[in-house]
């Protein structure tokens, strides 16, 4: 119960005199009754009994041993609970950070390996059913290029084995009809698809490096395209690289940025090639036969008929020659598609493609860890702050209620 009425001047004077009397200082004569009151009240103050005073003195001198024991036990119990709880909380936080970090890493690696995953398998199955052999991330890839994606390299090994089986089976199948050509004479059409990621500011430089690389390996650029939308830039190239130097060229191209995906395919065109060759030989033999027959022809009708057939055979030979040339070109020049995409995120190796873990990488990892920790702390704060506020309000309410209940003991019954 608070009384907020201000004191009058006289009351303030009396209160001041009371304070002086309590302090042992002299008071005004008209207020000496306050001094008497102070003396009387103090003189009539209840005194401790000697027995109780001695008992209390002993308890104080011994440090309340009976009271201290449970307090110490309580402290131990509290420590017993708080330390594991703190440890669990810290472990949970660390675990959360690690899980978040792994999720982040998984999302990146999943993104990088996705084209070499399920999609690749389905493509492979489709190619196999069509009598083609397809290999992705072929073993020809240089170790440097294969190093950043060991899983892709493993996939490449299995694809190579499948390719060998496919080649063997196709050879065996052909052996029943045609003469199987030697392994060294096989004609294969190779193609590759490479997606690189570089910082936006390096897209143009990477595109220039692609052109220089193509020139270095004697390739040609069938088409190129570059675009820039806002802060996002990208460039794409359709290249023809001599098949004999394809592996070296791919290795060089892979160094121009972070390899997001790298796919290679191989189509065996030996059958088509030998078929065309056979048909060409047949046509040429037929032409020779027709020419011989023409020399021996006696009637004009025979001569006209043989000349018409010779025209057909010549056109057939010309068509087959063109077909063979096209097949040779497919075998000699590999189709390589290169995409360079820009990203705002900092690159791990800034296009150097070293694949190592440099101090810069460590610093970036540390920053990333700090970011995750800050994120966890922020989320925790967002959750805990309202709870703490609520808890504080509840504690205040409980405290006020307890005080009010205690104060009620002074109210008249």
């Amino acid at each position, binding site marked *: *119960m*608070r*009384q*907020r*009425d*201000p*004191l009058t001047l006289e*009351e303030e004077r*009396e*209160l001041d005199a*009371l*304070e002086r009397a*309590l*302090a*042992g200082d002299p008071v005004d004569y008209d207020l000496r*009754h*306050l*001094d*008497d*009151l*102070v*003396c*009387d*009240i*103090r*003189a*009539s*103050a*209840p*005194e*401790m*009994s000697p027995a*109780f*005073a001695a*008992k*209390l003195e002993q*308890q*104080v*001198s011994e*440090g*309340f041993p009976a*009271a*201290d024991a449970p*307090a110490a036990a309580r402290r131990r119990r509290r420590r017993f609970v708080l330390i594991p709880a703190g440890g669990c909380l810290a472990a949970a936080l660390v675990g959360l950070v690690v899980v978040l970090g792994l999720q982040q890493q998984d999302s990146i690696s999943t993104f990088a390996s996705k084209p070499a995953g399920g999609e690749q398998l389905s493509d492979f199955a489709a190619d196999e059913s069509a009598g083609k052999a397809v290999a992705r991330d072929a073993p020809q890839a240089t170790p440097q290029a294969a190093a950043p994606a060991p899983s892709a390299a493993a996939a490449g090994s299995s694809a190579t084995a499948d390719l060998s089986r496919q080649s063997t089976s196709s050879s065996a199948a052909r052996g029943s009809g045609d003469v199987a050509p030697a392994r060294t004479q096989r004609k294969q059409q190779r193609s590759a698809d490479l997606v690189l990621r570089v910082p936006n500011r390096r897209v143009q430089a990477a595109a220039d490096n692609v052109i220089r690389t193509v020139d270095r390996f004697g390739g040609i650029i069938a088409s190129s395209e570059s675009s820039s939308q806002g802060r996002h830039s990208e460039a794409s190239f359709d290249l023809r690289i001599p098949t004999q130097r394809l592996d070296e060229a791919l290795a060089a191209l892979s160094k121009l940025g972070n390899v997001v995906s790298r796919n290679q395919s191989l189509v065996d065109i030996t059958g088509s090639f030998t078929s065309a060759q056979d048909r060409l030989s047949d046509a040429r033999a037929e032409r020779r036969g027709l020419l011989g027959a023409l020399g021996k022809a006696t009637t004009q009708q025979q001569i006209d008929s043989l000349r018409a057939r010779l025209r057909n055979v010549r056109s057939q030979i010309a068509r087959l020659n063109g077909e063979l040339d096209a097949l040779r070109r497919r075998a000699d020049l590999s189709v390589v598609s290169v995409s360079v995409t820009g990203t705002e995120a900092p690159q791990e190796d800034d296009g150097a493609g070293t694949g190592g873990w440099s101090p810069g990488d460590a610093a970036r990892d540390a920053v990333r860890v700090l970011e995750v920790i800050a994120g966890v702390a922020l989320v925790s704060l967002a959750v805990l702050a309202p709870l703490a506020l609520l808890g504080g309000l509840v504690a205040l309410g409980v405290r006020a209620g307890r*005080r009010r*209940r*205690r*104060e*009620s*003991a*002074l*109210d*008249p*019954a």
Partner: protein
Amino acid sequence: MIWREPRSSRMNGVLIMEEPLNTSTLSFDALYRECARDLYAYVRTLLGDDTSAEDVTALAFERAYRRRSSFDARRGTQRGWLFGIARNAALDELRRRRRTAPLLGDLEDELAAAPDEEAELAVRRSTVRTALAALPARDRELVALKFHGGLSNAELAAVLGTSETNAGTRVHRAVTKLRKACHAPA
């Protein structure tokens, strides 16, 4: 540095100067020696019962000893802190008593034991004691804290959870009531 006049050294209006105590950093033992008698007098006046007063006094010192590390000098003096603990214990005792059976204060018959030459003084003090016992509990507590406990208005305010000005006002009104009760016809 705060210097406090020891309340217990003042007897019958005669102030006996003793070694001053620094209450801002008293050890528990020194705090006990300085406050024990005053604390008991306050608790006894509030409860009106020797046995309960002894229990509550012992409990207050025990709690203070147990929580001595939690004392914060920025929030008040050790004396005020100790009286706050005692007050909580005493109020809890009052509440417990209210739930069970009320105890009546056992006023001593000082007149019977007083010599003739001190009869007038004894009568006066008996009157004061009777008037104090008849005061409402809140006023009685204020008088006990002020006169027995020797708390300043700032310490009173901290113990009662009110402002210093309000504490002074309440003390004045309690003393006024006490004076009226002393002069009221029996």
